[in-house]
């Protein structure tokens, strides 16, 4: 590239930056592959993730109660082993505002009834936050009990826990 083409190149980059800024500004910071790269920008906030526990051998009176990470009932089901992207699953659980029947069934389909078989899987929300100034606490909130053909909501949680937006 000669000097003239270099100037033209910089002008084109300038125009791209304007388009870039316009697209990310109007799409909450993301218009792939353009991004403001906001990951980890808000530090110190409590977080919510999700996991699946195999509660096939746990009695019904225990499965719905809040648990600690060390005292969890049932072993974690590996998402990799059932071909589900863990981050997808976690976002599906944490970002769904209205757990309509179709959304609950979509979760069952995500796991795959053939993977569940005769087991009972507990889709749980996992919450983490700072306690005081020197420790992090993690709690497990049982959320949806999934079998090969049914999905049950936690009877200990109010309906407002499952339906938070307009529906």
């Amino acid at each position: 590239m000669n000097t003239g083409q270099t100037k033209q190149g910089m002008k084109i980059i300038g125009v791209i930056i304007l388009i870039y800024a316009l697209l990310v500004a109007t799409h909450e910071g993301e218009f792939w592959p353009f991004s403001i790269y906001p990951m980890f920008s808000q530090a110190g906030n409590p977080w919510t993730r999700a996991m699946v526990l195999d509660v096939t051998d746990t009695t019904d009176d225990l499965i719905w109660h809040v648990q600690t990470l060390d005292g969890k009932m049932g072993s974690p089901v590996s998402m990799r082993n059932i071909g589900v992207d863990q981050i997808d699953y976690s976002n599906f659980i944490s970002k769904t505002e209205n757990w309509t029947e179709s959304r609950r069934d979509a979760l069952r389909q995500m796991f795959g009834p053939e993977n569940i078989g005769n087991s009972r899987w507990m889709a749980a929300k996992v919450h983490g936050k700072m306690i005081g100034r020197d420790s992090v606490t993690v709690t497990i909130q049982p959320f949806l009990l999934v079998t090969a053909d049914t999905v049950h909501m936690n009877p200990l949680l109010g309906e407002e826990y499952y339906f938070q937006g307009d529906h």
Partner: protein
Amino acid sequence: MKWAENIGRGLFEPERSTSNGELWFFKFLELFVSVYTVIFVWEWGWYTQLRNVEVVLPLGLANYMDVSLFFDHNLALINAALITLLVILCYFRIGPKWLYMVVLILFHLQYVIRFSQGEIPHSQNLIGMSVFCFAIGAWFFPGEKQMPRFVLGSIIFFIGLGYTSAFFSKLIGTGFNWYDGRHLWLWISEKSIDILSREGVYQPNILQQMALNSTAIASVILLIGWFTELIGFTMWWKKIRPYTTALLIGMHIGITLTMNIRFDAFVMQLILVGFPWYKLIDHFTVSMPDIVRKWI
């Protein structure tokens, strides 16, 4: 504007003549980007076909069209096949000069179809930005010697911009205390749940244990990473570029060790564009036997 000319000279090096090594390297870089593009679109296509049921989070074009149409009837796989065909045509410069732009649009579509489930990953952004730079380069600088300079220069520009932008996102989102080591504790615990859920087991490594045992160590880890992001833009200048790139690669290794987040394609591409590999190729082509050089 002097500063724009200065950046332009750093990125596009108008004073330097094009060497054979540079042209060879450029075709290798294009092959790398093409292969990863094909890998990504097929991975996303298969996952969509097997797992996507409902749109949880509409991204990009998904705000304006119902991408759930692509969840069935193998449409995501058909899109992957179409992108693959177009990438091959583009690589061999068959077809109109705007063909790369069509690849980019279909690539974007495939991304928003696959990642309509709530996750917004960034590890594929650099391949996406590279396809974008190839699209602009092929359109505005189609010449055999001009396109490599523009494409490589613009990729480097947007890498530097992205890292520095990430620094300011953290400064605006949290403030100067972003590097407080306790923030790292929260992220380590958060990612540990992802690993436990993904694999069924989780064991912290030595670096994570050190960070969890000492606020000071955790703070230093964050501070080094944050500072490295800030100076990302210094990649725009040729002489500083290898050093900045080495720091950025080190930062990514640190992220992988502390938060179990891997950026394989990202790091490989940093290695490719951050160092002057063409000099090495030129050296070999000069020192190789005449018969081999003529054949090449």
